[in-house]
């Protein structure tokens, strides 16, 4: 085809696209920072609604349900929450673009509940440069809590993965001091973030790890990894997996007649998504940690917080299954966020950070005894968690909340 | 009554007609050649008749009624087209190619008999019957293509340059077979060829195409009698069969 004509056309279309890209600039009120007014607070989020991590999109349902509930009750001091979310397909580069869009186009006041370790690391520089509160991340990477110089505007939402790892190591030490430990982990930031502190904690507790097997989330099955771990002769099996692979692992271990003590990360500690599909018989006695109330547990059906959660989800996100613990997590973190917004002394981004970094509060959807505690030098909002054991068809909380120090 | 009648037929690709206002008639059991230089529209003519191209204007009448649109429906009415380049079906064996030719035939015993006849006509096909058809030489593939068409027991056989790319000896062999088929008298043949001499060794009369239009027609004798015609429009003298 004629180069000249095609160039003109390409140029014309490209310039139309450029023109489309120019958006109107939002007006700013009398407030110092954008995204907040007498009647409104704009929050921005980014979730994987598509792509390989799309199961995590469910977290958004819970958050949305709680914000809608708060708005239906009149908002926070008369300010309604507008929660703008974009799809990032679980790609860090998309999170970067989304955050730029949320801050520059949508003029959000703060970022809330973005998931994934690499994904949040990717935007950390940007939020620091632009001084945007980057709160209650849906990741437990301890680096955000430790390196406050680099991440002063960032705060994780869930217990540090390292906290869970330390709890696991301590539990193994207590139950089986001479254990031979086998670990299965997902070969991405999620799994690596759980594995690395666990290795440190195991060293600290003098535990012997005899086998570590990675799996790629893009592959169909972990059967051959479990087979390999079973042959290592381990008598403790730690599973840092997402639900589908957690269920595969439990079932394959049973098929191989391998009966180690099993510890399963709380991400996959779901009766409905993991243990029932894997088979209840094979799931008895599995250990995990908990910080959230379990909406699928019949025993908690009368808990007012769970009742409110179930009703809110039904009202505002009608098709969502409330049993998914990720939805409960989103709901709980939205409760924390609302507390932080309520505690603002000044309606500014700095005011929000100050509120978030000096909190001592109970949150209804969290298990009793787990408080949100932060201070300017302490960026681990949830330090405690419970050990729990799967018995019959439900999780049973064991003992008191633990606060192991993350390694 | 004519078997095939074309009236003011135009056809081609996209919005450019290659054939323009072509009219011709072919009677049952006769062999008619279509002569013309490269690009005269000969192949377009055959492709339009067999339904691979849709005419932009004009009428194709076969046994007194219009042809359906889809090529396989036209084939089911007894029109067999040996396409340019032989149309060997890759990945199938020689025998499977022949059986595809008999796809419209219902009687199993008759198909087996026709198969035997093909093998008798071209023993080389018998020898290679279980080989992939693409392993055959060009001439063998032409014999296969002709046989595949005959397996359909056609009433009208369309042949597109059966001599193309073949050594003179092989051309001779192929044309001998074509003449034998015509002599058997069961079908009519529309034969496209660049070489007038070659085509007229089988055909009894011919149409001459130039730039997509019929510029001449006549019997074997008439064409022979006007050497100007073949020189002017055909250009080549071609093979002696």
């Amino acid at each position: 085809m004629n180069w000249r004509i095609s160039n003109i056309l390409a140029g014309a279309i490209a310039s139309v696209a450029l023109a489309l890209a120019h958006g109107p600039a939002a007006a700013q009120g009398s407030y110092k920072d954008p995204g907040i007014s007498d009647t409104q607070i704009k929050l921005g989020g980014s979730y994987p609604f598509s792509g390989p991590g799309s199961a995590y999109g469910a977290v958004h349902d819970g958050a949305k349900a709680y914000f809608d509930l708060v708005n239906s009750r009149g908002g926070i001091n008369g300010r309604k929450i507008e929660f703008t979310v974009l799809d990032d397909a679980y790609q860090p580069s998309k999170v970067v673009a989304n955050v730029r869009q949320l801050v520059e186009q949508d003029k959000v006041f703060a970022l809330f509940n973005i998931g994934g370790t690499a994904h949040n690391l990717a935007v950390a520089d940007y939020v620091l440069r632009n001084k945007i509160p980057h709160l209650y991340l849906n990741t437990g990477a301890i680096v955000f809590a430790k390196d406050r110089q680099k991440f002063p505007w960032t705060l994780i939402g869930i217990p540090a993965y390292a906290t869970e790892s330390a709890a696991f190591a301590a539990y193994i030490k207590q139950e089986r001091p001479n254990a031979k430990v086998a670990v299965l982990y997902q070969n991405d930031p999620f799994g690596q973030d759980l594995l690395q502190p666990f290795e440190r904690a195991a060293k600290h507790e003098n535990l012997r790890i005899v086998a570590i097997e990675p799996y790629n989330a893009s592959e169909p099955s972990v059967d051959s990894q479990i087979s390999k771990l079973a042959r290592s002769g381990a008598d403790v099996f730690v599973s840092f997996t997402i639900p589908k692979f957690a269920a595969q692992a439990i079932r394959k271990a049973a098929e191989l007649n391998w009966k180690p003590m099993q510890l399963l990360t709380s991400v996959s500690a779901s009766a409905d998504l993991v243990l029932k599909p894997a088979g209840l018989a094979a799931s008895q006695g599995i250990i995990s940690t908990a910080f959230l109330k379990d909406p699928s547990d019949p025993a908690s059906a009368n808990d007012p917080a769970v009742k409110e959660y179930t009703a809110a989800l039904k009202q505002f996100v009608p098709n969502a299954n409330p049993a998914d613990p990720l939805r409960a997590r989103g709901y709980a973190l939205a409760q924390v966020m609302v507390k932080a917004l309520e505690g603002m002394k000044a309606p500014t981004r700095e005011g929000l950070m100050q509120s978030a970094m000096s909190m001592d509060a109970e949150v209804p959807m969290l298990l009793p005894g787990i408080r949100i505690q932060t201070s300017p030098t302490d960026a681990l909002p949830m330090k405690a968690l419970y050990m729990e054991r799967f018995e019959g068809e439900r999780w049973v909380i064991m003992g008191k909340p633990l606060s192991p120090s993350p390694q | 009554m004519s078997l095939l009648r074309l009236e003011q037929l135009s056809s081609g690709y996209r919005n450019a007609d290659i054939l323009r206002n072509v009219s011709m008639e072919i009677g049952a059991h006769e062999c008619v050649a279509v002569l013309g230089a490269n690009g005269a529209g000969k192949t377009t003519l055959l492709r339009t008749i067999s339904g691979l191209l849709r005419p932009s204007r004009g009428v194709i009448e076969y046994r007194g009624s219009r042809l359906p649109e889809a090529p396989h429906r036209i084939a089911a009415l007894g029109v067999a087209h040996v396409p340019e380049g032989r149309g060997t079906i890759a990945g199938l064996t020689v025998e499977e190619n022949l059986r595809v030719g008999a796809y419209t035939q219902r009687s199993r015993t008759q198909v087996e008999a026709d198969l035997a006849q093909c093998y008798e006509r071209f023993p080389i096909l018998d020898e290679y019957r279980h080989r992939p058809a693409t392993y055959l030489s060009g001439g063998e593939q032409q014999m296969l293509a002709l046989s595949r068409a005959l397996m359909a027991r056609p009433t009208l056989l369309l042949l597109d340059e059966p001599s193309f790319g073949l050594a003179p000896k092989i051309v001779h062999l192929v044309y001998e077979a074509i003449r034998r088929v015509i002599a058997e008298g069961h079908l009519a043949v529309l034969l496209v060829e660049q070489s007038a001499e070659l085509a007229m060794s089988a055909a009894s009369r011919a149409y001459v195409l130039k730039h997509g239009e019929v510029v001449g027609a006549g019997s074997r004798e008439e064409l022979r009698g006007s050497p100007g015609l073949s020189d002017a429009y055909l250009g080549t003298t071609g093979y002696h069969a």
Partner: protein
Amino acid sequence: MLEGLLQVVIDGCASGAIYAAVALALALVYKSSGIVNFAQGEMGMFCTFITWWLNQQGLGLAAAIAAGLAIAFLVGAMVERLFIRPVASYGEFPAVLTTLGLFLVFNELAPWLWGPENRAFPSLFGNGVLAIGAARVSAESVGILVVMVAVGSLFFLVMHKTKLGLGMRAAAANATSSSLSGVPAPRMFMLGWGFATALATLAGVLIAPRLFLDASLMLGVIVYALAAAALGGFTSLAGAVVGGLVIGIVETLASNYVEFIGSDLKILVPLTVLLVVLIFRPTGLFGKSAERAV
């Protein structure tokens, strides 16, 4: 050590059975329409969801599977008619890229309709475990292999011993020539897509109990299945099954006994095997060269 090896080989066969199941569907659609359908796995996944949903609605498992396969056949045929046929004449790229578009559509439609979470899928073969010496294998894995070999053989017979199969192969290899011989090529393509989608759904129904059903059911399998189908030569149904098993076994062996590869790089094993085989046999183990004589 030897017991370990037996278990490793058996695990490899179990994975291989899964790859083979999907590879068979890929080979069938290639054989009957000449297109590598990137959406094959996703269409199978989608129809597996339909089967699951029918089962949830109270239909018995066997009836749900039968209905699911019938729906899959229709879905496949419709997709060919509505989306593939219009672009088929443009050449190969547009058709293949259209299957890529379909891939995205089906991949996202399923979680939108049924939710993103994984779920159990009832097994046709129960939860039994067979012991072979000291090695153990689930009845399901054996069942997958047996059913796929049986179905593969059935399709082989249909494709090679019936007139319909001859027509389908001919249409795929040379649509023009075939239709000039009276083969209704468009209908053959529709049938081919229908059969292949039903076969992919059968593969989905068989593997979903092992892998658990979610929208990514086939995502992990499709690369292996493509490699298996290519290893087998694309047009060969037996080749697809053999290719799947070879890949499953070699992959599991390598991840167990080659320190460097381990479980994280094992996905590279089938692709390397494929590359090496193709360098010596550019049309796969069982593929027939269509380009010998020009």
